[in-house]
């Protein structure tokens, strides 16, 4: 078991300096999600206009994997259509299964090591589950 497979430098960088951390004070789509098995929490906000994610922010409590995943995700979905964001969430699920997938926002590929640590997959997917809910809400 190689810890460095899990905790790559880019992950630690997102953990230490999370992007898009904070809250909008307008009527952005807001999703609160927690991981009942471990207590991790995320509050994700999406500012969606004409089917495009214009901006995203999050606040949360969790481990390095869950917070860095949220940081990367909020960066990656900016400027994407809801369909593209959903496609990204699907590809991220594939990444967690050990599939060889690519992202335009290539920091995400650093999380591929998580697939070798089954107990930590739910940490990495928390933000993405929030995103799926957010896309559903935005479409209503």
């Amino acid at each position, binding site marked *: 078991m190689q810890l460095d497979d899990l905790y790559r430098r880019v992950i630690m960088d997102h953990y*230490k300096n999370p992007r898009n951390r904070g809250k909008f004070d307008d009527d952005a789509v807001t999703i609160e999600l927690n991981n009942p*098995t471990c*207590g991790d929490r995320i509050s994700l906000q999406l500012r969606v206009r004409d089917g495009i994610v214009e901006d995203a922010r999050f606040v949360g409590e969790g481990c*390095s994997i869950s917070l860095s995943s949220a940081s990367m995700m909020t960066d990656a979905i900016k400027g994407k259509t809801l369909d593209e964001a959903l496609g990204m969430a699907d590809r991220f699920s594939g990444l967690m299964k050990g599939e060889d997938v690519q992202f335009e926002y290539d920091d995400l590929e650093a999380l591929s090591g998580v697939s070798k640590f089954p107990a930590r997959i739910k940490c990495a997917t928390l933000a993405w589950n929030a995103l799926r809910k957010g896309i559903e809400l935005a479409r209503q």
Partner: protein
Amino acid sequence: MNAAQIRELFPILRQEVNGHPLVYLDSAATSQKPVSVIEALKRYYEWDNANVHRGVHTLGTRATEAYEGAREKAAKFINARSTQEIVFTRGTTSAINLVALSFARAVLKEGDEIVLTPMEHHSNLIPWQQAAKATGATLKYIPLQEDGTIRLEDVERTVTDRTRIVAMTCVSNVLGSVNPVKEAAAVAHRHGACILVDGAQSTPHMRIDVQDLDCDFYAFSGHKMCGPTGIGVLYGKKELLERMEPVEFGGEMIDHVDLHNATWKELPWKFEGGTPIIAGAVGLGAAIDFLEQVGLDEIREHERRITDYALERLSEIEGLSIYGPRRHRAGLVTFNLGDVHPHDVATVLDAEGVAIRAGHHCCQPLMRWLNVTATARASFYLYNTEADVDRLVSALLKAKEYFGHAIG
């Protein structure tokens, strides 16, 4: 007792995990099983397996004797007055649910009080929340001291004549605090209330005497005390259990059945509908034999030594915070390593072959009380040694170094 020799009786502990000899420090979640328990399960399935209380054939008789023999062992183990007071359940959770459901159906009314503590495991919290919702009863909480202990005067202040039941854990699975359950039982009884004691974390580690505690109900699980999963015990005072209606209905628990009505078997079988967890009970019996052979007082003393040593060594780690009381505590230590999330700590420890628990430990209200979202916990049992604590400490130092560089 010699923990190093005892360890040899646990086959699972002989393995390497991630290239290191396994150090198992998660017994508060579930304990490992000695070879005698594993053999008892194997022997039961290879020789005695049959359904109980039915067949006239030899295997049926043997299975029944094994199952009821385990009940006798459990009764003696906690000093119940008779085997009628020992109901086999799936574990502590289903034992507590049985009492809560029964109280919700027959005892609790609007305005009645259920008294709990904020340190309860979800299993001794949610059943009472549900009972309160169903009946209009109110939940009241005995406040905790800053170190996570309970003062008797706060029990006295919280319990009133409107209290119908006090439900309290004997040992906190997070704080390790040992609660004054005997004194709390006296307070409850003075007000005409019952007391249920959650014994999941106490029964494996210390001598329990339900008559001395004078508790009305006492629940525990087999798997935390060297037994198999899926078996537990609800102890209840006979006069109370007699007044309670079963919550599960079906075969095995009935006396007479016609097309429209049925009557129940006598205690304890009226609470054991369906084919029971026979092998589980046999395994629990073997676990009780094993613990008695080692000696509960010896186990408690051993854990006290290990825990004192762990507290001492862990205090040497700068930035590590320990939760719960320093004195009079059970064999577990809950902590956080600076700002490093407990999941990350546990992953680094696992890479070093050290198994600990990380998360909210099924105690979300207590986590909020501690003002944390999660904690790490190392818990000890009779097979742990000082060397295990040393491995824990050196793995924690590695975690600190690893994340020190990473987080800065």
